[in-house]
Protein backbone atom coordinates (compact mmCIF):
# COMPACT_ATOMS: atom_id res chain seq x y z
CA UNK A 1 0.00 0.00 0.00
CA UNK A 2 2.69 2.41 0.98
CA UNK A 3 4.73 1.28 -1.99
CA UNK A 4 1.87 2.08 -4.29
CA UNK A 5 1.48 5.52 -2.78
CA UNK A 6 5.19 6.22 -2.98
CA UNK A 7 5.32 5.10 -6.58
CA UNK A 8 2.40 7.33 -7.54
CA UNK A 9 3.98 10.28 -5.76
CA UNK A 10 7.38 9.85 -7.40
CA UNK A 11 5.90 9.19 -10.84
CA UNK A 12 3.68 12.24 -10.50
CA UNK A 13 6.64 14.44 -9.60
CA UNK A 14 8.61 13.13 -12.56
CA UNK A 15 5.81 13.64 -15.05
CA UNK A 16 4.83 17.06 -13.81
CA UNK A 17 8.45 18.17 -13.87
CA UNK A 18 8.79 16.84 -17.41
CA UNK A 19 5.73 18.80 -18.52
CA UNK A 20 7.02 21.89 -16.77
CA UNK A 21 10.23 21.66 -18.80
CA UNK A 22 8.24 22.33 -21.92
CA UNK A 23 5.92 24.92 -20.50
CA UNK A 24 8.34 27.11 -18.55
CA UNK A 25 8.96 30.56 -19.90
CA UNK A 26 12.67 30.85 -19.24
CA UNK A 27 15.21 28.38 -20.55
CA UNK A 28 17.02 28.25 -17.22
CA UNK A 29 13.86 27.35 -15.35
CA UNK A 30 13.15 24.63 -17.91
CA UNK A 31 16.56 23.19 -17.18
CA UNK A 32 15.82 23.20 -13.45
CA UNK A 33 12.58 21.31 -13.97
CA UNK A 34 14.53 18.80 -16.03
CA UNK A 35 16.85 18.28 -13.06
CA UNK A 36 13.82 17.57 -10.90
CA UNK A 37 12.61 14.96 -13.35
CA UNK A 38 16.05 13.33 -13.19
CA UNK A 39 15.67 13.10 -9.42
CA UNK A 40 12.25 11.56 -9.87
CA UNK A 41 13.67 8.94 -12.22
CA UNK A 42 16.34 8.12 -9.66
CA UNK A 43 13.54 7.57 -7.16
CA UNK A 44 11.86 5.17 -9.58
CA UNK A 45 15.07 3.19 -10.04
CA UNK A 46 15.41 2.86 -6.28
CA UNK A 47 11.82 1.69 -5.93
CA UNK A 48 12.56 -0.97 -8.52
CA UNK A 49 15.45 -2.20 -6.43
CA UNK A 50 18.21 -0.95 -8.71
CA UNK A 51 20.00 0.91 -5.93
CA UNK A 52 23.31 1.27 -7.69
CA UNK A 53 21.62 2.57 -10.80
CA UNK A 54 19.51 5.02 -8.81
CA UNK A 55 22.53 6.42 -7.04
CA UNK A 56 24.48 6.59 -10.30
CA UNK A 57 21.55 8.44 -11.86
CA UNK A 58 21.87 11.09 -9.19
CA UNK A 59 25.64 11.23 -9.44
CA UNK A 60 25.86 11.42 -13.22
CA UNK A 61 22.60 13.04 -14.32
CA UNK A 62 21.94 15.44 -11.49
CA UNK A 63 25.56 16.04 -10.62
CA UNK A 64 27.19 16.16 -14.02
CA UNK A 65 24.85 16.28 -16.98
CA UNK A 66 22.64 18.90 -15.34
CA UNK A 67 25.71 21.06 -14.91
CA UNK A 68 26.54 20.57 -18.58
CA UNK A 69 22.99 21.49 -19.58
CA UNK A 70 22.97 24.55 -17.35
CA UNK A 71 26.28 25.74 -18.73
CA UNK A 72 24.98 25.18 -22.25
CA UNK A 73 21.87 27.18 -21.38
CA UNK A 74 24.14 30.02 -20.36
CA UNK A 75 25.47 29.97 -23.91
CA UNK A 76 22.12 31.23 -25.19
CA UNK A 77 22.35 34.90 -25.73
CA UNK A 78 19.59 36.34 -23.67
CA UNK A 79 19.74 34.22 -20.56
CA UNK A 80 17.11 36.12 -18.66
CA UNK A 81 14.69 36.36 -21.52
CA UNK A 82 11.16 35.23 -21.10
CA UNK A 83 9.41 33.87 -24.12
CA UNK A 84 6.20 32.08 -24.73
CA UNK A 85 6.76 28.34 -25.08
CA UNK A 86 3.86 27.92 -27.47
CA UNK A 87 3.89 28.26 -31.23
CA UNK A 88 1.25 27.69 -33.88
CA UNK A 89 2.02 24.21 -35.16
CA UNK A 90 -0.25 22.47 -32.70
CA UNK A 91 -1.82 19.81 -34.91
CA UNK A 92 1.34 18.56 -36.58
CA UNK A 93 3.30 18.43 -33.34
CA UNK A 94 0.48 16.55 -31.65
CA UNK A 95 0.45 13.99 -34.44
CA UNK A 96 4.21 13.48 -34.37
CA UNK A 97 4.50 13.29 -30.61
CA UNK A 98 1.38 11.20 -30.27
CA UNK A 99 2.55 8.58 -32.75
CA UNK A 100 6.01 8.47 -31.17
CA UNK A 101 4.46 7.94 -27.78
CA UNK A 102 2.15 5.29 -29.18
CA UNK A 103 5.04 3.37 -30.73
CA UNK A 104 7.10 3.51 -27.54
CA UNK A 105 4.19 2.53 -25.33
CA UNK A 106 3.24 -0.43 -27.48
CA UNK A 107 6.84 -1.57 -27.77
CA UNK A 108 7.40 -1.24 -24.03
CA UNK A 109 4.24 -3.13 -23.19
CA UNK A 110 4.51 -6.01 -25.58
CA UNK A 111 8.27 -6.59 -25.54
CA UNK A 112 9.68 -9.57 -23.71
CA UNK A 113 11.96 -7.95 -21.16
CA UNK A 114 14.57 -10.31 -19.67
CA UNK A 115 14.36 -10.42 -15.88
CA UNK A 116 17.18 -10.06 -13.39
CA UNK A 117 17.47 -13.80 -12.78
CA UNK A 118 19.87 -13.85 -15.68
CA UNK A 119 22.66 -12.35 -13.57
CA UNK A 120 21.83 -13.65 -10.14
CA UNK A 121 22.09 -17.44 -10.31
CA UNK A 122 24.80 -19.19 -8.34
CA UNK A 123 25.89 -20.71 -11.64
CA UNK A 124 27.45 -17.36 -12.36
CA UNK A 125 30.08 -18.20 -9.81
CA UNK A 126 28.83 -15.72 -7.25
CA UNK A 127 26.70 -17.33 -4.58
CA UNK A 128 24.02 -15.10 -3.17
CA UNK A 129 23.72 -15.43 0.61
CA UNK A 130 20.43 -15.08 2.41
CA UNK A 131 19.43 -11.58 3.27
CA UNK A 132 20.91 -9.96 0.20
CA UNK A 133 18.31 -7.54 -0.95
CA UNK A 134 17.67 -8.18 -4.60
CA UNK A 135 14.79 -5.82 -5.05
CA UNK A 136 11.10 -6.35 -5.57
CA UNK A 137 11.22 -7.73 -9.10
CA UNK A 138 13.80 -10.38 -8.25
CA UNK A 139 11.78 -11.36 -5.20
CA UNK A 140 8.80 -11.84 -7.49
CA UNK A 141 10.92 -13.99 -9.76
CA UNK A 142 11.92 -16.18 -6.84
CA UNK A 143 8.33 -16.50 -5.76
CA UNK A 144 7.32 -17.42 -9.30
CA UNK A 145 9.89 -20.21 -9.27
CA UNK A 146 11.79 -18.68 -12.15
CA UNK A 147 14.89 -18.19 -10.05
CA UNK A 148 16.50 -20.30 -7.32
CA UNK A 149 16.13 -18.77 -3.88
CA UNK A 150 19.16 -17.48 -2.02
CA UNK A 151 21.44 -20.15 -0.67
CA UNK A 152 21.83 -19.69 3.08
CA UNK A 153 25.02 -21.69 3.18
CA UNK A 154 26.87 -19.51 0.72
CA UNK A 155 30.24 -18.31 1.87
CA UNK A 156 30.96 -15.45 -0.48
CA UNK A 157 29.38 -12.05 0.12
CA UNK A 158 29.16 -10.15 -3.12
CA UNK A 159 25.99 -8.09 -3.50
CA UNK A 160 24.60 -6.47 -6.64
CA UNK A 161 27.42 -4.03 -7.28
CA UNK A 162 30.00 -6.77 -7.28
CA UNK A 163 27.86 -8.81 -9.64
CA UNK A 164 27.68 -5.82 -11.90
CA UNK A 165 31.44 -5.51 -11.84
CA UNK A 166 31.91 -9.13 -12.61
CA UNK A 167 29.52 -9.17 -15.53
CA UNK A 168 31.11 -6.00 -16.90
CA UNK A 169 34.44 -7.75 -16.95
CA UNK A 170 33.25 -11.02 -18.41
CA UNK A 171 30.05 -11.12 -20.45
CA UNK A 172 29.96 -7.46 -21.37
CA UNK A 173 33.64 -6.81 -21.73
CA UNK A 174 33.40 -5.69 -25.33
CA UNK A 175 30.65 -3.22 -24.53
CA UNK A 176 32.73 -1.94 -21.65
CA UNK A 177 35.80 -1.28 -23.77
CA UNK A 178 33.75 0.17 -26.59
CA UNK A 179 32.24 2.47 -23.96
CA UNK A 180 35.64 4.00 -23.34
CA UNK A 181 36.08 4.58 -27.05
CA UNK A 182 32.68 6.22 -27.27
CA UNK A 183 33.60 8.50 -24.38
CA UNK A 184 36.88 9.36 -26.08
CA UNK A 185 35.10 10.17 -29.32
CA UNK A 186 32.59 12.35 -27.48
CA UNK A 187 35.40 14.23 -25.76
CA UNK A 188 37.39 14.81 -28.91
CA UNK A 189 34.31 15.81 -30.89
CA UNK A 190 33.13 18.29 -28.30
CA UNK A 191 36.55 19.88 -28.01
CA UNK A 192 36.87 20.20 -31.76
CA UNK A 193 33.48 21.85 -32.04
CA UNK A 194 33.94 24.10 -29.05
CA UNK A 195 37.28 25.37 -30.24
CA UNK A 196 35.78 26.83 -33.38
Amino acid at each position, binding site marked *: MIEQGAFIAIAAVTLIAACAVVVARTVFVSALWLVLSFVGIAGLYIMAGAYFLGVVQVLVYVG*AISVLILFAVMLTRNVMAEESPFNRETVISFMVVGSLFGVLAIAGYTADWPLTHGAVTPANGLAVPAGTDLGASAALAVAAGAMPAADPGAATMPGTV*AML*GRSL*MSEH*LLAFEVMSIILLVALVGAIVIARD
Partner: protein
Amino acid sequence: MSESWVFVAVFALIALSIPLIGLLMAFALRPKRSGPIKNSTYECGLETIGETWIQFKVQYYLFALVFVLFDVETVFLYPWAVAYNHLPLFALVEMFVFLFILGVGLVYAWRKGALEWV
Protein backbone atom coordinates in the same frame (compact mmCIF):
# COMPACT_ATOMS: atom_id res chain seq x y z
CA MET B 1 12.85 -3.72 1.95
CA SER B 2 15.74 -4.77 4.10
CA GLU B 3 17.57 -1.61 3.16
CA SER B 4 16.42 1.55 4.79
CA TRP B 5 15.69 3.66 1.75
CA VAL B 6 12.45 4.65 3.47
CA PHE B 7 14.60 6.37 6.05
CA VAL B 8 16.42 8.20 3.30
CA ALA B 9 13.13 9.51 1.94
CA VAL B 10 11.98 10.60 5.40
CA PHE B 11 15.35 12.17 6.12
CA ALA B 12 15.26 14.03 2.82
CA LEU B 13 11.89 15.53 3.72
CA ILE B 14 13.09 16.52 7.16
CA ALA B 15 16.31 17.96 5.73
CA LEU B 16 14.18 20.00 3.35
CA SER B 17 12.09 21.33 6.21
CA ILE B 18 15.07 22.60 8.21
CA PRO B 19 15.74 25.61 5.99
CA LEU B 20 12.00 26.23 5.76
CA ILE B 21 11.75 26.33 9.55
CA GLY B 22 14.72 28.69 9.61
CA LEU B 23 13.07 30.93 7.06
CA LEU B 24 9.84 30.97 9.03
CA MET B 25 11.60 31.86 12.25
CA ALA B 26 13.50 34.65 10.58
CA PHE B 27 10.37 35.93 8.88
CA ALA B 28 8.75 36.31 12.25
CA LEU B 29 11.74 37.94 13.86
CA ARG B 30 13.21 40.38 11.39
CA PRO B 31 12.42 44.00 10.56
CA LYS B 32 10.80 44.67 7.22
CA ARG B 33 11.81 48.09 5.95
CA SER B 34 12.55 47.78 2.27
CA GLY B 35 13.25 50.65 -0.08
CA PRO B 36 14.20 51.18 -3.72
CA ILE B 37 17.89 51.74 -3.06
CA LYS B 38 18.21 48.78 -0.74
CA ASN B 39 16.49 46.55 -3.23
CA SER B 40 18.53 47.40 -6.27
CA THR B 41 21.15 45.02 -7.60
CA TYR B 42 24.51 45.26 -5.92
CA GLU B 43 27.48 46.28 -8.02
CA CYS B 44 30.04 47.62 -5.58
CA GLY B 45 27.66 50.38 -4.67
CA LEU B 46 27.33 51.75 -8.19
CA GLU B 47 24.50 51.66 -10.64
CA THR B 48 24.14 48.57 -12.81
CA ILE B 49 26.15 48.98 -15.98
CA GLY B 50 24.77 47.30 -19.02
CA GLU B 51 22.36 44.42 -19.25
CA THR B 52 22.57 41.60 -16.81
CA TRP B 53 24.14 39.05 -19.03
CA ILE B 54 27.78 38.10 -19.25
CA GLN B 55 30.09 37.09 -22.01
CA PHE B 56 30.00 33.35 -21.70
CA LYS B 57 33.34 31.61 -21.89
CA VAL B 58 33.33 28.24 -23.55
CA GLN B 59 35.87 27.10 -20.96
CA TYR B 60 33.13 26.45 -18.45
CA TYR B 61 31.37 24.15 -20.84
CA LEU B 62 34.56 22.25 -21.61
CA PHE B 63 35.31 21.71 -17.94
CA ALA B 64 31.81 20.41 -17.39
CA LEU B 65 32.21 18.13 -20.40
CA VAL B 66 35.47 16.59 -19.27
CA PHE B 67 33.86 16.20 -15.87
CA VAL B 68 30.91 14.29 -17.29
CA LEU B 69 33.27 11.94 -19.07
CA PHE B 70 35.35 11.22 -16.02
CA ASP B 71 32.23 10.87 -13.90
CA VAL B 72 31.00 8.14 -16.22
CA GLU B 73 34.44 6.55 -16.03
CA THR B 74 34.14 6.57 -12.25
CA VAL B 75 30.78 4.85 -12.53
CA PHE B 76 32.51 2.01 -14.36
CA LEU B 77 35.43 1.96 -11.95
CA TYR B 78 33.33 1.45 -8.84
CA PRO B 79 31.75 -1.93 -9.70
CA TRP B 80 35.12 -3.14 -10.96
CA ALA B 81 36.78 -2.14 -7.70
CA VAL B 82 34.09 -3.74 -5.57
CA ALA B 83 34.20 -7.00 -7.53
CA TYR B 84 37.98 -6.97 -7.80
CA ASN B 85 38.69 -9.70 -5.30
CA HIS B 86 36.40 -12.05 -7.21
CA LEU B 87 37.91 -11.30 -10.58
CA PRO B 88 40.85 -12.91 -12.35
CA LEU B 89 44.10 -11.01 -12.92
CA PHE B 90 43.01 -10.25 -16.45
CA ALA B 91 40.46 -7.80 -15.05
CA LEU B 92 43.32 -5.49 -14.16
CA VAL B 93 44.50 -5.55 -17.75
CA GLU B 94 40.98 -4.86 -18.98
CA MET B 95 40.67 -1.87 -16.70
CA PHE B 96 44.10 -0.70 -17.73
CA VAL B 97 42.95 -0.63 -21.35
CA PHE B 98 39.85 1.31 -20.35
CA LEU B 99 41.83 3.85 -18.35
CA PHE B 100 44.46 4.11 -21.04
CA ILE B 101 41.88 5.10 -23.63
CA LEU B 102 40.43 7.69 -21.32
CA GLY B 103 43.91 8.83 -20.40
CA VAL B 104 44.48 9.51 -24.08
CA GLY B 105 41.35 11.65 -23.93
CA LEU B 106 42.68 13.59 -20.95
CA VAL B 107 46.00 14.19 -22.67
CA TYR B 108 44.20 15.32 -25.80
CA ALA B 109 42.09 17.76 -23.82
CA TRP B 110 45.21 18.98 -22.06
CA ARG B 111 47.15 19.55 -25.26
CA LYS B 112 44.26 21.27 -26.96
CA GLY B 113 44.01 23.69 -24.09
CA ALA B 114 40.59 22.55 -22.92
CA LEU B 115 41.91 22.42 -19.37
CA GLU B 116 43.24 25.95 -19.34
CA TRP B 117 41.43 28.49 -17.26
CA VAL B 118 41.01 31.70 -19.17
